[in-house]
């Protein structure tokens, strides 16, 4: 059964939808994990992504691959999660923890946890574009398909994100 048939069948068939979960669960989980860096939250948000996919599978138009469509849903689910966090003020506690006065040079090796804390303080779209580009190794064209935007707008968001990230690091005393 090809992907097209599988998707068509999965709208009403549990087994077929189970196959979609088998194929794409890992990729979606990894992407969400790179945005949240928390396994429990990732588990919940991945589940929510697939349940949303089941609910709206009949609206999938095959303009991009099913993986990119799932990434689009996952992006919305994660963004919604962060917005809720902001409402609950948890985000600011985390943001405060991300800041400390430093005079280290960023030439030193840095880990993902460190940079992730800063990335999560960026505007939503910049977070998504930087994560997909650097940690999911997606091209601008892929990201444009996932987010349903033009390549040009993704490129602009990308450079703005880098600039903002650098400014945030510099504000905390890191040197380039």
């Amino acid at each position, binding site marked *: 059964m090809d992907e097209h048939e599988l998707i068509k069948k999965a709208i009403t068939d549990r087994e077929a939808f189970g196959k979609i979960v088998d194929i794409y*669960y890992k990729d979606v989980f990894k992407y969400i994990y790179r945005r949240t860096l928390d396994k429990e939250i990732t588990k919940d948000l991945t589940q929510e992504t697939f349940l949303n996919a089941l609910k709206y599978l009949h609206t999938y138009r095959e303009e991009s691959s099913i993986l990119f469509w799932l990434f689009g849903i996952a992006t919305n689910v994660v963004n919604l999660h962060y917005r809720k966090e902001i409402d609950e003020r948890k985000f600011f506690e985390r943001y405060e923890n991300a800041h400390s006065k430093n005079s280290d040079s960023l030439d030193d090796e840095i880990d993902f946890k460190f940079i992730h804390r800063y990335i999560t303080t960026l505007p939503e779209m910049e977070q998504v574009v930087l994560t997909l580009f650097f*940690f999911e190794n997606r091209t601008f064209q892929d990201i444009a398909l996932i987010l349903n935007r033009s390549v040009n707008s993704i490129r602009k968001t990308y450079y703005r994100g880098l600039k903002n990230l650098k400014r945030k690091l510099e504000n905390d005393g890191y040197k380039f």
Partner: protein
Amino acid sequence: MWREDNKDTEKMEKILKSIHIEDIPSEEIEKYKNEFKAHLNENFEKVASQKERTKVFRMNFAYGIVAVVLILFAFSFVYTRPYFVKLAVAKVIENKLGYKVSLKDIIVNDGVGIVIYNLDEITVDILNKSIETNSPIQYELSNEEKEKAVEIFRDSREAKNFVLNPGTPPQDVSKNDILSVKGLLFPKSNKKLIELVTTAYSAPEEGTQSHRNAACVRTYVRFLIDIDRGTIQY
């Protein structure tokens, strides 16, 4: 400035590319996946029925909107239909008789348009585009009607600023003698108009020998009065 910005961007890109991400063990992801699939097995029917409910709700909502639009259209048609009939009647009269009538002077009765023009009652059937012309019937006026007609005439702007011929100065004929008052009934529309005849004076023609000393010429003028509207009808 631009070069410096570019350099910084490149450096930031280099840093981000150099970051190594610890991979989550595949077994762990597999475990989460199986947990989810078990959850899915239990909830698939629920989500599917929820989807069906949403679909039914959307369909009902769409039908509801269509029904409301149709009802609104039907209601509005009751009010807009006479207007469209008037437009069609005006168009037929203009095409067949060659004169323009004002929409407010057209009476709509059972889809037929009636207009009184030059003391003729013109009936236009817009479906077969036929025109029928009728003359009015004279009827006996009551004293009340007569008095009202005279009052409307005396107070009217048309009588106070009456222009006999185009280009001549206006004159006040509202206080002139009234020579006759007749009731006219138009059979198709049952419309009543009152014909009132009074006097006016025309200036002698220029260039004639007697022009300088000639007196003004007395003439008769006819006004049509609509007592229902309280106006002078042209």
